[in-house]
């Protein structure tokens, strides 16, 4: 069962699809910049600094998406023992680390003019930082295990435990202290965001989701290509 099944689509095709999606995502990203700078109004109290919100929030979304999918793929791996799930989890973790880096850098850039400090131990910021550490640990573990079946089992266990750790970290840092702006977009009463901002944010979220999918697909395809090459090498 530790044998990778033959993928229904060739790795090269998967990589190509991933690259196309990533390029579309990057074009979309340029559009988000234009929208954020030209279309949305300048926020009254925060001024231009608020514009970073259109990168910060969607990258947070993509990072969370990435890490949730690592957890789900890990659980499925332990059930089905399909190597592709392991490759997908690894790809998703790598991309997730990249998005959480975007989130961790845009956060302080915004916080400095608005909160007057680069870093605060605010609940969501702390949660993000620990997510980042958690998945750095996940990737470090993968690098330190040689046998690939063992690597898949170990990292699946860490992936599942990590997914369940997130609510605990959230709850504890939240109980600890918080001064992060409360989510106002999805408040049940009425969104207090001007429609231009809301639309731009939605576009940005779609773009970042596309970027996530593109990058993960590319990385996943490359991993499959590696496997295929090594298998060909062994049987030769």
């Amino acid at each position: 069962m530790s044998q990778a099944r033959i993928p229904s689509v060739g790795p090269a095709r998967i990589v190509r699809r991933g690259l196309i999606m990533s390029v579309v995502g990057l074009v979309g990203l340029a559009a988000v910049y234009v929208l954020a700078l030209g279309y949305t109004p300048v926020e009254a109290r925060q001024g231009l600094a608020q514009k970073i919100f259109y990168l910060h929030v969607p990258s947070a979304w993509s990072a969370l998406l990435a890490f949730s999918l690592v957890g789900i793929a890990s659980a499925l791996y332990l059930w089905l023992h399909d190597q592709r799930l392991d490759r997908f989890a690894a790809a998703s973790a790598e991309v997730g680390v990249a998005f959480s880096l975007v989130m961790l850098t845009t956060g302080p850039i915004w916080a400095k003019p608005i909160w007057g400090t680069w870093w605060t131990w605010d609940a969501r910021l702390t949660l993000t930082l620990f997510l980042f550490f958690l998945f750095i640990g996940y990737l470090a573990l993968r690098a330190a295990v040689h046998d690939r079946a063992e690597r898949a089992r170990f990292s699946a266990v860490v992936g599942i435990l990590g997914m369940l750790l997130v609510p605990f970290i959230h709850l504890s840092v939240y109980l600890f202290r918080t001064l992060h702006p409360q989510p106002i977009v999805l408040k049940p009463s009425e969104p207090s965001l001007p429609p231009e901002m809301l639309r731009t944010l939605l576009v940005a979220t779609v773009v970042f989701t596309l970027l996530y999918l593109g990058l993960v697909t590319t990385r996943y395809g490359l991993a499959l290509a590696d496997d295929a090459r090594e298998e060909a090498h062994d049987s030769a």
Partner: protein
Amino acid sequence: MPSHDGVALIEARGLQRSYGRVRILRGVDLSLSPGEALAIIGPNGAGKTTLLRLLSGLLRPDAGEIRVLGEKLTPGAHDTRKAIGLLSHQSLLYDDLTLRENLAFAARLYGLGQPGRTAEDALRSAGMIDRGAELPRRLSRGLLQRAALARALLHSPSVILLDEPFTALDAAAAERLRADLRSRLAGGAAIVVVTHQLGDVWELATRVAVLIRGQWAADEPRSESVDAFLGRYRAMTDG
């Protein structure tokens, strides 16, 4: 491999296993009835140790299945696991526990009554009753091997898997081991023994097999002299 009379004690079909990207076993069949002893020989890296680890349940096969006493060997199949005894390259003994404590702990793992008594009995039949209070790391290689054998056979398994059992044993200890194995065979056990010293087990074996690159190159009843067989074996490995 044909199974002879009655139900096979251990039966394997189409075993395959890779380690990392290297394919170790490429489809191995095996079937042993009570009283049968199979001696396996093969060059380094042929997959002999992997085969024993699969048969013991320590490794799961990538493909194929193993049945012990007709039951499929799975991690949860406790009765099946109880029927298996494995002597591996390692002693499986804790360096910070005395031999007596090690054996008593093993007895507890196998759910044997009176672990202390069982440990004493095992020490006595291994001729090590005066060594019970010693720590494994203080023992010589040969004594350690005898202790490891005592641990592996403590629960009187009916399927006995031995990886190089005669390593480091002196002539007297080797003879005692052969006598012990012979009486276990007479009692209805089956033995798989992997060895480079085929002469040590030749008289004991009912069948001999050659494993090369993860497949049987020969598998037959023992019929000729050990030298004649080794002559053919050399031809197989050269080819």
